[in-house]
């Protein structure tokens, strides 16, 4: 196992280096550079353009710049953004990445769970109108033209019903009166940590009570659900009382993008779970379990669904890994200032360090998620061993 991990990490490092090489030269090969874009005005003398180019190091040959970039990158310096000039790329990424990850992590987990449960039931009850209608709904959700679907959601919830804000991360009018030194990111990080701790307690409670007897288990589950809820309430009502209106504002802006991404991801997960479950139901051990006289529910949930989980797990991990590139569409339509939107705008204005930073994070996320998926296989299916 450790040898496998070491080998994989080495391969990952080489792949990342190759990825950086390819993307750097692709980015660099775009005609023109940011100095041209900044000095579009004909009144600016050409000497000024050359000066900007010299300051940003763009007058050096691409190969030299590339080696400098890679050298600095592995020493932990990702450079300074060209388009948001004095800000370091690392700072921008640390600001934007949580927004993308929260959006996609929440949506993936919800759609994964919902798809798992409904795909399981649908495969169990084959035939009839339910199968066809659910497959059609799943396929439509899976293949729907995402920008249009997002626009329809905005129209329905933000324009027609007027329940939720139509997009963006926060409402500037509410934040106008915010106290000095209060940053949206601080509030957002507090929200992430409180939600993470609460869900951690919830999951720990569920795992812990799984082996108890039925009566105790029900009680334990209620407790593990109520305790984090009370904790969250106490924290936001009393400890962080000054921030809760701002947190509420961010939360309101978060709901619509999460809902949209969840619905889109749900279609695919449900179809995948159904297919995988249908394949598993053909296995001999399902026949054995039935022949032993186990109840239908046990056969379905404990024998079939557990084994059918493998491809769905891959799908979940890959979708989290690909959230930055997948997020470009959603983040653009909702003007959600995450890493996907940052990558898109940086690539368009030829802000090479920022675009490279965002691309590298994307690549790194994909690589790590592939590794996590592979290691997860070994836990889900004990027959898989890495030697």
């Amino acid at each position, binding site marked *: 196992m450790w040898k496998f991990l070491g080998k994989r990490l080495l391969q990952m490092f*080489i792949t990342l280096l190759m990825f950086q090489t390819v993307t750097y030269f692709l980015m660099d090969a775009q005609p023109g550079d940011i100095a041209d874009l900044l000095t579009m005005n004909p009144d600016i003398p050409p000497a000024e353009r050359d000066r900007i180019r010299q300051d940003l190091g763009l007058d050096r040959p691409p190969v030299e710049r590339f080696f400098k970039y890679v050298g600095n990158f592995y020493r932990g310096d990702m450079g300074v953004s060209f388009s948001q000039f004095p800000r370091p790329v690392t700072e921008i990424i640390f600001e934007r990445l949580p927004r993308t990850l929260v959006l996609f992590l929440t949506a993936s987990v919800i759609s994964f769970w919902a798809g798992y449960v409904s795909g399981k039931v649908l495969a169990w009850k084959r035939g009839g109108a339910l199968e066809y209608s659910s497959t059609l709904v799943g396929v439509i959700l*899976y293949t729907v*033209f995402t920008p249009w679907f997002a*626009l329809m959601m905005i129209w329905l919830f933000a324009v027609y019903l007027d329940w939720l804000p139509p997009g963006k991360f926060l409402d500037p009018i509410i934040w106008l009166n915010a106290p000095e030194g209060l940053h949206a990111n601080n509030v957002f990080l507090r929200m992430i940590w409180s939600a993470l701790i609460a869900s951690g307690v919830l999951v720990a409670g569920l795992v812990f009570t799984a082996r108890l007897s039925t009566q105790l288990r029900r009680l334990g589950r209620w407790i593990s659900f109520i305790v984090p809820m009370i904790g969250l309430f106490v924290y936001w009502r009393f400890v962080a009382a000054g921030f809760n209106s701002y947190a509420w504002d961010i939360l309101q802006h978060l709901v619509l993008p999460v809902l949209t991404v969840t619905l889109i991801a749900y279609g695919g997960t449900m179809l995948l779970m159904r297919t995988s479950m249908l394949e598993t139901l053909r296995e001999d051990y399902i026949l054995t379990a039935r022949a032993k006289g186990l109840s239908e529910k046990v056969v379905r949930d404990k024998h079939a669904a557990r084994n059918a989980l493998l491809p769905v797990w891959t799908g979940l991990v890959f979708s989290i890994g690909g959230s930055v590139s997948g997020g*470009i569409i959603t983040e653009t339509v909702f003007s959600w200032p995450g890493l996907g939107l940052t990558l898109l705008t940086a690539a368009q204005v030829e802000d090479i360090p920022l675009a490279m930073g965002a691309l590298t994070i994307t690549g790194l996320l994909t690589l790590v998620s592939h590794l996590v998926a592979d290691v997860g296989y070994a836990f889900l299916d004990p027959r898989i061993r890495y030697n």
Partner: protein
Amino acid sequence: MSTLSSSAEIIYVPLWRVRLRLFWRSLKTNWATFTENPIGLIGLGLIIFFGLFALAHPILMNTAWDRKVYDPVNGFDIEIPFHPSPPSAKHLLGTDPMGRDVLSQLMFSTRFEFALGMISALVTVLIATTIGAVSAYYGGVIDVILMRVVDLVIMVPFLPILIVMSALMHVGMLELALVIGVLSGFGGTAIVIKSQALTVKVKPYIEAARISGGGDFHIIFTHMVPNLLPIALLYMMFVVTSAIFSEAVLSFFGLTEIEMSWGLMINTTQVFGYLMRFDTWYLLIPASLAITLLCAAFYLVGRALDEVVNPRLRER
């Protein structure tokens, strides 16, 4: 002796006829499995509908429709004072902000969507089957190198790369189809086909072919690849879906140089500021619905084919 030779004469049928008959028989049984599930038939019906839709356009242009008014790219209806205009008897789906007929644009774009999907699917299958078969057959260093290339392509986020490419070169329909085909051919499809090729590689007939002196090239292309084609055909359908979808997204962001497509129709709506207005629904909804339905159609056919290829998914 004489009876034996005469019976041999009676049995003798040319090989191509035997193959044709076998092919016809398997086609018939596969068609029966395919039609068992209405899901696949719905998809096939939608594809046929869009096919007829695309065919109708040149016919209409040459007979009923005046070229100056109905041309999808340069047409303009001078009799209507203000564009976009709502649906009327003359323009069944209204006109767009530049005075062009929406229905004509919709029909005109259909053939390009088909061509785009088909070309990229063919390129994908060609690349993915070759990579999958070669990588599974040889294993070792070749396998590691090819799979790392596949990893690299999977890592590259699709949209930013296409944005950069649209700055580098002219991105028309053909270039886009080739890029999508190559990227998805080196991507996930190759992994799926390789895993199938691994199971084919250990079959006895591969061993038999090797013992009877078949070369590597011969074994890969005449014994392995034909057995990978069913699953390749299945993944072609999914590639068509993703190709049409990617084109629509890119055109929606205004990054392609295609003269007319469904995504471009939505882009025009956005550029002229009619995106969030629902009194001009005829600008947004027909094109979006067409993208969704054609993508869904190919996906549905793919799922029905999945049941033909993979017997474990069938109901009985």
